[in-house]
């Protein structure tokens, strides 16, 4: 209560300040006049009486200030005074102000952007009720969360830890609303999905567990708000309407609330359908197959009072039940909990590691900026030592002077923070609106929120205090008499000062950034030129899903043959082949366990390898540019009635058969017991990601492993852009109702390179910032030390010193700092690059090019920063200089 009162009083006095000032002045004047009246009465002449009265009164200004202070308005008022003074000082040195504000803006902006992303992706990823108790179940031994549907049902019904367990899986389907058919990204979700997540519909209703009555029993869909808005134009009459998904009728029952985008932070589905209708949506029914792990994720809220550890124990006991009951399908079932938003730990772990690393780097940038500004401030304080000494001599107290300096620092940092925040908010907005991959519904919802603003403000204040505090000791130790007497600070410090340490640290930080950005860029370049196991240049990919146009059974291969024939006749096309999932492009691959031919007990733990499985048409290797090392490729004769055959990669050959030569003609087994003969061996490649270790892979004939979801790889000699149009035309002629997605393979690779590109970009930006900060820092120091020692240098030159010696005297310290700082930074950078290795392909700092690059960059930076001061030192004319002083 007291505090509130006093605050109110202070604010009130602040508003009445001008009135109060006027009154105070009038009162003091009245006092002096009364005294003058008395003196005049005692016989003094009028003018003399007034003069005497004023003298007797004492320092009017001082008493006025003390009176104001006594009246309580002083704190805020003196803050305003400080602010006014600071503005005046800053306006007098616009160069310094601009540099300082920009430095601060850059540093705070970088932090705000990085934190904004961190905040959106990791700290507050999902805008769901009670998000903190929401966990996804992933496998205990790997960062993956796929379950089979029967296993999901067991987990759902047998656990005692979750308030309901929901399942969902992403898929693509053709949506026909009566206008034109188009592809849509959807979630297939368990009936209880919305109830488990506590999501209430924006319009209509959501479906529930009670709507499920076996396969294809619930042809209902819930639209996302975004799709309802764009496709259905906010039409409230849409509820109850029938639309076609892959030519199957579904009823729209509701619209999800606008803030609900599913349970993954980067993948926003267009609509939701019950997972029990899988057959209609995906074309196959895996609901009863315990061995098929295809359900993308299962998640739910932990019951109140259940800890994650207890829940894992509970799940693991279900796991061992599953192992006992279904030894053929369920092997080694253990579980862990993870946050669902970034696909459990699969993306979560690297993203967290990278963002934490980035945040630390941004923090280092801010520290560097503070060090920079701190030394600038110290230099200014030294330059202003005369002013400070004069003010001290005139009776100003030291705290007031310090407060004044601090006000200046805070003003600068807040200004810089505001500019930086504006920039970063714009950047974050752009990032949020950005869809990096045209074909995936992927974007980063990283709109800044109050946390970001608060952090920026906090950082600005903290850094203001940090760099404002640097000159404090200097001011506290100012001896007014010495300085006023001796003119300027004649002493040149020989020992290591705080400023030297700050600058050294800053150079080291910069070197860390330069090192890690070079490591990232180099890794990126290397991954662009690495051997993928295919040649994406001049290949156009056509994503087709015949199921979406309701082709089934034998119609599928027949139609695929017709498509190949049609595309082959396009002029310029050299070869055309089908593959069910394109390496480095498609996300979900079929993995398949393979067994040695001698193995009789086909349980998962006996498998010889878990390998990628592709099904291809004969010409695929030719179209993709994959080199066949030995044997033959697939032919059209490898059909259903022919013996099963496979082409395998070298890794597969060496893993199962010891060597490539050994593998030809040999047999291996699949899970279902089929014996497959190896007829050819192709080169190794990258399949899922650029950073993966070499994986075994096998290619089976499309006719023996049919798939309606396939990509047509079309190699041509012509321009890919024109080719896209020609292919679309010729396929439209075959079937106008088939949704197509056509794109050059190279463009599609952007997805695979996205992570390393982002890493290189982010680190490059931060590295540039660090370099700029170092340049200004070294420049400031060198320039300052030269201006301080002009006289000494002049005398040296007059006494016959050589240019080299003068330079050494003037810049020796800056160069030494640069060398030590760079060396320390390089070492740290090498250590830090280990974090990078998980994101950027072959990121290693033990690369002579990187090391040389860093040294060169730092040297260049030093040269740039010291060039102007060096010129200045060399152009000293001792005669002029000595005359002036």
């Amino acid at each position, binding site marked *: 209560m007291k505090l509130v009162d006093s605050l109110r009083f202070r604010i009130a006095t602040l508003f009445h300040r001008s009135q109060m000032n006027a009154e105070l002045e009038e009162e003091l004047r009245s*006092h002096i006049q009364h005294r003058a009246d008395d003196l005049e009465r005692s016989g003094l002449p009028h003018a003399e009486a007034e003069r005497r009265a004023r003298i007797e009164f*004492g320092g009017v200004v*001082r008493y006025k200030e*003390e009176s104001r202070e006594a*009246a309580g308005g002083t704190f805020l008022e003196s803050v305003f005074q400080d602010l006014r003074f600071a503005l005046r000082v800053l306006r007098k040195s616009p160069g310094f102000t601009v540099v300082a504000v920009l430095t601060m803006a850059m540093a705070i902006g970088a932090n705000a952007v990085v934190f904004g992303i961190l905040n959106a992706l990791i700290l507050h990823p999902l805008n769901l009720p009670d998000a903190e108790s929401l966990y996804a179940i992933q496998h205990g031994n790997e960062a993956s969360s796929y379950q089979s549907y029967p296993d999901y049902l067991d987990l759902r019904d047998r656990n005692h830890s979750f308030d309901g367990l929901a399942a969902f899986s992403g898929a693509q389907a053709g949506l026909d609303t009566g206008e034109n058919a188009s592809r849509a990204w959807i979630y297939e979700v368990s009936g209880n999905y919305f109830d488990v997540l506590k999501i209430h519909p924006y319009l209509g209703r959501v479906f529930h567990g009670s709507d499920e009555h076996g396969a294809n029993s619930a042809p209902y869909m819930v639209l996302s708000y975004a799709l309802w808005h764009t496709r259905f134009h906010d039409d409230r009459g849409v509820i109850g309407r029938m639309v076609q998904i892959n030519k199957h009728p579904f009823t729209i029952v509701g619209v999800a609330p606008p803030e609900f985008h599913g349970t993954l932070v980067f993948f926003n589905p267009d609509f939701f359908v019950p997972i029990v209708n899988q057959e209609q949506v995906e074309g196959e029914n895996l609901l009863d197959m315990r061995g098929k792990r295809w359900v993308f994720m299962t998640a739910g809220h932990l019951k109140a009072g259940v800890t994650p550890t207890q829940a894992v124990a509970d799940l693991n006991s279900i796991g061992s039940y599953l192992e006992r009951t279904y030894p053929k399908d369920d092997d080694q079932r253990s579980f862990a909990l993870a946050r669902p938003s970034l696909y459990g730990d699969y993306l979560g772990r690297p993203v967290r590691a990278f963002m934490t690393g980035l945040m630390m780097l941004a923090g280092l940038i801010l520290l560097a900026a503070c060090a920079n500004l701190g030394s600038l401030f110290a230099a200014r304080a030294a330059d202003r030592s005369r002013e400070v000494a004069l003010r001290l001599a005139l009776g100003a107290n030291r705290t007031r002077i310090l407060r004044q300096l601090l006000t200046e620092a805070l003003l600068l940092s807040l200004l810089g923070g505001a500019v930086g925040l504006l920039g970063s908010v714009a950047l974050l907005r752009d990032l949020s609106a950005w869809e990096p991959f045209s074909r995936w519904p992927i974007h980063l919802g990283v709109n800044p929120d109050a946390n970001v603003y608060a952090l920026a403000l906090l950082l600005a204040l903290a850094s203001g205090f940090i760099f404002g505090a640097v000159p404090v000791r200097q001011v506290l130790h100012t001896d007014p008499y010495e300085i006023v007497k001796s003119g300027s600070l004649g002493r040149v410090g020989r020992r290591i000062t705080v400023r030297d340490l700050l600058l050294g640290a800053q150079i080291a930080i910069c070197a860390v950034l330069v090192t890690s950005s070079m490591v990232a860029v180099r890794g990126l370049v290397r991954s662009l030129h690495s051997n993928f196991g295919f040649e994406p240049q001049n290949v156009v990919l056509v994503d087709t899903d015949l199921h979406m146009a309701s082709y089934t059974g034998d119609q599928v291969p027949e139609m695929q043959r017709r498509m190949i024939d049609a595309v082959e006749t396009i002029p310029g096309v050299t070869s055309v082949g089908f593959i069910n999932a394109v390496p480095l492009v498609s996300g979900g691959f079929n993995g398949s366990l393979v067994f040695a031919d001698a193995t009789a007990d086909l349980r998962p733990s006996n498998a010889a390898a878990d390998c990628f499985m592709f099904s291809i048409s004969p010409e695929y290797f030719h179209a993709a540019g994959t080199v066949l090392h030995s044997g033959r490729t697939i032919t059209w004769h490898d059909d259903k009635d022919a013996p099963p055959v496979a082409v395998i990669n070298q890794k597969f050959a060496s893993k199962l058969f010891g060597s490539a030569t050994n593998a030809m003609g040999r047999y291996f087994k699949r899970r279902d017991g089929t014996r497959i003969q190896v007829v050819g061996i192709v080169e190794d490649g990258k399949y899922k990601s650029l950073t993966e270790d070499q994986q075994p892979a096998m290619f089976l004939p499309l006719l023996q492993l049919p798939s309606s979801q396939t990509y047509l790889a079309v190699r041509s000699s012509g321009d890919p852009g024109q080719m896209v149009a020609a292919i679309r035309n010729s396929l439209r002629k075959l079937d106008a109702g088939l949704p197509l997605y056509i794109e050059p393979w190279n463009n599609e690779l952007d997805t695979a390179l996205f992570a390393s590109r982002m890493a290189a970009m982010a680190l490059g930006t931060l590295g540039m910032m660090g370099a700029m900060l170092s340049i200004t820092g070294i420049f400031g120091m060198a320039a300052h030390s030269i201006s301080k020692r002009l006289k000494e240098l002049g005398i040296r030159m007059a006494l016959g010193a050589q240019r080299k010696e003068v330079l050494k005297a003037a810049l020796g310290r800056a160069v030494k700092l640069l060398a030590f700082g760079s060396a320390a930074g390089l070492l740290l950078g090498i250590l830090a690059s280990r974090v990078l290795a998980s994101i950027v392909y072959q990121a290693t700092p033990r690369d002579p090019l990187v090391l040389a690059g860093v040294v060169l960059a730092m040297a260049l930076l030093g040269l740039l920063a010291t060039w102007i001061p060096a010129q200045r030192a060399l152009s000293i004319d001792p005669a002029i200089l000595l005359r002036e002083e």
Partner: protein
Amino acid sequence: MTDQAQLLPGTLDLLILRAVSLGPLHGYGILLRIGQISGNALLIEQGALYPGLFRLVRQGLLKASWGTSENNRRAKFYELTAAGRKRLREETANWNRLVNAIGSALGTQPEEV
């Protein structure tokens, strides 16, 4: 001038309260009154009065209002509030106790110990 005593810290407030307790006064009047009641024995720089006055107003011990002085000039007059009157009584009692204690301590003769 030289035989005037320096004020002890904190005693100016007490003197102001006392001066004003005899009737509303403006700033210069308070100085004159202090001089009068102390027999001109205290050295007070004139301006030093005002911070003290403002402090007392802020503490609610004095209240101020503008009026016209005997010289027919505008001046701000100060008078005691109820709190001020109470404070004056307490401070006076304190002061007397202090003076008695110090006085008797300083007046003690060696043989009395």
